[in-house]
């Protein structure tokens, strides 16, 4: 596996010139408001995704009231079925005054929720030209990844498994191809179901992971958020440290082969 040269002493996640200490992006869906703040703080997440929906006058609180001030907001374009709809949602989200980051999510398959890669490229091109920091959610296809780079994406966000499934790294090999070939941060988003899976893909060189359902459906949300935080840190450290070689067809003794105690 090709390892990119990294400066271990100053290892920050850099997205379009913005620096982050945490490589843990937290989705805010499926949480009750009283738990979201605890989850964010325990996770140490510095980027949180949000969705844009019709406002409900009856609700007293808004999710923004529960997100710490230093956290970067990452609105998604969920609900968009075409590039045009994604662009509309992105512009509306930016008008709310929460920065230029946008996660492009274009889905017209309501059963498997797999993203439409072509519409995603189209939306990326339009929004990148308008100065958005575009983070496109995509089905891992190296050709589409290259198109997204050319379209001005700030990161590539390949899915591991269907949204909400907790199935884990089903697309691991194809994510690795993207990590090896693309210079932009590769952030694995959707389907990761356990801290071990998050650790594993970080170990392979992912720049960050996004987790939502795996924490929201855990028995203890706060504890699971912390487990993921530690796993992501461990995976990153292992990647930077450089994994040892694998021997496929023989063993190699770990203890000396001389000076045995024998008659």
């Amino acid at each position: 596996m090709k390892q990119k040269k990294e400066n271990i002493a100053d290892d920050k996640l850099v997205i379009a010139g913005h620096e982050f200490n945490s490589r843990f992006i937290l989705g805010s869906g499926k949480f009750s408001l009283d738990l979201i703040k605890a989850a964010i703080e325990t996770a140490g997440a510095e980027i949180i995704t949000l969705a844009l929906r019709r406002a409900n006058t009856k609700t007293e609180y808004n999710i923004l009231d529960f997100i710490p001030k230093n956290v970067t907001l990452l609105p998604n374009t969920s609900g968009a079925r075409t590039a045009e709809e994604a662009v509309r949602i992105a512009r509306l989200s930016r008008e709310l005054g929460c920065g230029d980051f946008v996660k492009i999510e274009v889905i017209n398959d309501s059963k498997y929720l797999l993203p439409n890669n072509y519409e995603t490229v189209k939306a990326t091109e339009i929004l990148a030209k308008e100065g958005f920091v575009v983070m496109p959610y995509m089905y891992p296809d190296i050709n589409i990844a290259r198109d997204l780079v050319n379209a001005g994406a700030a990161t590539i966000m390949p899915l591991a498994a269907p949204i909400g499934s907790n199935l884990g790294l089903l697309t691991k090999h194809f994510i690795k191809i993207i990590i090896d070939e693309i210079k932009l941060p590769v952030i694995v988003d959707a389907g990761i179901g356990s801290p071990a899976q998050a650790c594993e893909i970080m170990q392979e060189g992912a720049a960050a992971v996004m987790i939502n359902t795996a924490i929201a459906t855990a028995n203890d949300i706060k504890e699971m958020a912390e487990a993921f935080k530690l796993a992501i840190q461990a995976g990153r450290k292992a990647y930077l440290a450089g994994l040892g070689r694998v021997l496929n067809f023989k063993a190699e003794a770990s203890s000396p082969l001389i000076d045995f105690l024998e008659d």
Partner: protein
Amino acid sequence: MKVNGKNITLTKSIILNDFLKKNDYNINRIVIELNGEIISKDKYNTVNLKDTDVMEVLSFVGGG
């Protein structure tokens, strides 16, 4: 007019800001799209709503 997909009867035109206040919207947490155009907050006190308008009032919620 239509607000968030629902039909509402406007007996007379009303300033957008007044409409939002009257309907308990938190102005700091919403964005407005009126007839397909995003309305910036500095225009809330000058835009007049009429019965043929189609408006979307949107805000952030939890999402993945």
